[in-house]
């Protein structure tokens, strides 16, 4: 009985006088901070972010911002409550000293913590040739600053825009270019747009959609080099089929790089694939031992997921940042019996070419697809993905209201092909076909969901304590 009282005292003491540092001041970091205060954490709270802006929303950047409707600095996130934090914006974290429990900043400052949340997210993968990357007129898109510059370049009516990479963001940008009446070429190394996330069957439909809207889509093509004029402005692109293209604006939309370098040497299971953690957002060290004081949320959190054979999943999805931040924060101020799991049913959306594409589950986990409802021709349909006789994901084009129906089946691991809802039967026969995902070992450049397996490349573990 006395022990119970002691533990309760510890929680009260931590909530009163504890020190929490959140590294990363975007969606996950903000929602985590709000949850900490909601849960009665009254200690000191520091939020560190490398961008100067206060937390803002990124999905509008490739859509309403590029279109010129909304200013790039007008996507600030609504605040759900006061967080009363010490905001250190424009300061990058450069290191983690676990022994002394300090976050090291670029300025040389050290910020001490009792518990720390990693929410540093990702950055845009830069153009591979550093010299060409200096060219004027070459852009990437991740931050509000990026969006402001690219929007200005598009508003100047360039003769042709080249988008390299036809993932979700590349495709959304191509859609905006066409809405602005700009000539746009999309060069995609894979077989079609969106194939990394949705497979070749959907990729073919997305390709047709792009071409119908006047996009010069070139698949199976990579861009080998970029050339500038005398003033250092990009003017030509050399493609892998030997042709050249005259361009005025180039956007490298090559996926993201996870911001984990600052954790190098800290002995955490952090690296290329993200930061490994348990389902309660607690970070593993390199040996797979769970830490007590370090948590992770958002785009770089990599946790085993019960629905997907306990593979470690990283999800660069909006609601994963929200829910992950909230669960991590809750668990940071809770003891064992009260901790909660973060086991999201992955969900995403993308607006492009006037079509609302939405999905649930993890498509690339499956190998078959079946069109279950609607009309592919009218681009209003639903499709389900399966693996070994169970449904693992679904995607809709302008059919979002049906997504819950499929989501519920995915959560129950219902049979594949799923029973048709008895409404809005599709044009063709409902025969499953190969979903045509690229080989997961071939880098696609733009995976927004990564099935990382159990990381066979990680050889940092100490096998068995050595007796001396």
């Amino acid at each position, binding site marked *: 009985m006395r022990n119970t009282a002691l533990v309760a005292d510890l929680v009260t003491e931590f909530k009163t006088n504890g020190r929490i540092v959140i590294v990363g001041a975007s969606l996950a970091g903000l929602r985590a901070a709000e949850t900490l205060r909601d849960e009665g954490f009254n200690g000191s709270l520091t939020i560190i972010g490398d961008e100067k802006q206060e937390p803002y929303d990124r999905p509008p950047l490739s859509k309403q911002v590029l279109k010129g409707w909304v200013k790039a600095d*007008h996507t600030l*996130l*609504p605040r*759900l409550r006061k967080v009363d934090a010490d*905001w250190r914006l424009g300061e990058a974290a450069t290191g983690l000293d676990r022994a002394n429990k300090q976050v090291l900043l670029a300025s040389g400052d050290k910020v001490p913590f009792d518990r720390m949340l990693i929410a540093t997210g990702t950055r845009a993968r830069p153009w591979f040739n550093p010299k060409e990357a200096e060219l004027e007129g070459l852009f990437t898109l991740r931050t509000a600053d990026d969006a402001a510059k690219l929007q200005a370049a598009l508003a100047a009516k360039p003769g042709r825009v080249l988008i390299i990479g036809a993932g979700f963001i590349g495709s959304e940008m191509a859609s905006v270019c066409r809405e602005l009446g700009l000539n746009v070429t999309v060069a995609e190394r894979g077989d079609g747009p969106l194939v990394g996330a949705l497979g070749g069957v959907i990729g073919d439909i997305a390709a047709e959609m792009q071409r119908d809207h006047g996009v010069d889509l070139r698949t199976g093509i990579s861009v080998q080099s970029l050339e500038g004029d005398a003033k250092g402005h990009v003017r030509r692109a050399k493609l892998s089929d030997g042709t050249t293209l005259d361009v005025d604006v180039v956007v490298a939309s090559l996926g993201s790089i996870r911001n984990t370098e600052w954790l190098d040497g800290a002995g955490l299971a952090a690296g290329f694939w993200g930061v490994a953690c348990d389902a309660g957002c607690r970070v593993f060290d390199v040996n797979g031992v769970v830490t007590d004081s370090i948590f992770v949320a958002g785009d770089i959190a990599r946790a085993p997921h019960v629905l997907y054979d306990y593979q470690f999943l990283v999800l660069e999805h*909006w609601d994963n940042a929200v829910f992950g931040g909230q669960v991590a924060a809750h668990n940071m101020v809770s003891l064992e019996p009260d901790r909660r799991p973060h086991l999201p049913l992955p969900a995403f*959306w993308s607006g492009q070419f006037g*079509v609302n594409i939405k999905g649930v589950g993890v498509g690339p986990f499956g190998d078959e697809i079946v069109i279950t409802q609607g009309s592919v021709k009218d681009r209003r349909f639903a499709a389900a993905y399966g693996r070994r006789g169970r449904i693992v994901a679904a995607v809709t084009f*302008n059919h979002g209201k049906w997504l819950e129906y499929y989501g519920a089946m995915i959560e129950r691991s219902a049979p594949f092909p799923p029973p048709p809802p008895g409404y809005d039967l599709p044009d063709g026969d409902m025969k499953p076909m190969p979903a045509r995902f690229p080989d997961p070992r071939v880098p696609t450049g733009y995976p927004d969901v990564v099935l990382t397996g159990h990381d066979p490349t990680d050889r940092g573990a100490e096998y068995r304590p050595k007796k001396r």
Partner: protein
Amino acid sequence: MRIVVDLNRCQGYAQCVPLAPDVLKLHGEEALMYDPNPPDSLRLQVLRAVASCPVRAIIVDEFDKKGEKA
């Protein structure tokens, strides 16, 4: 003011669109596009739009941010 629409939750009912047409628009048949930081003068319109959403997907700032440093 600030809003964010949870577009996973949004099902394109578009009840909100006529109530705050300068803030919330449809892109095609189903995809919602919105101004995340509309002028305060439209607050009443936006709050009506928030209340009209059958799936409560529109999130607005809950407090006056004055006094918060960032």
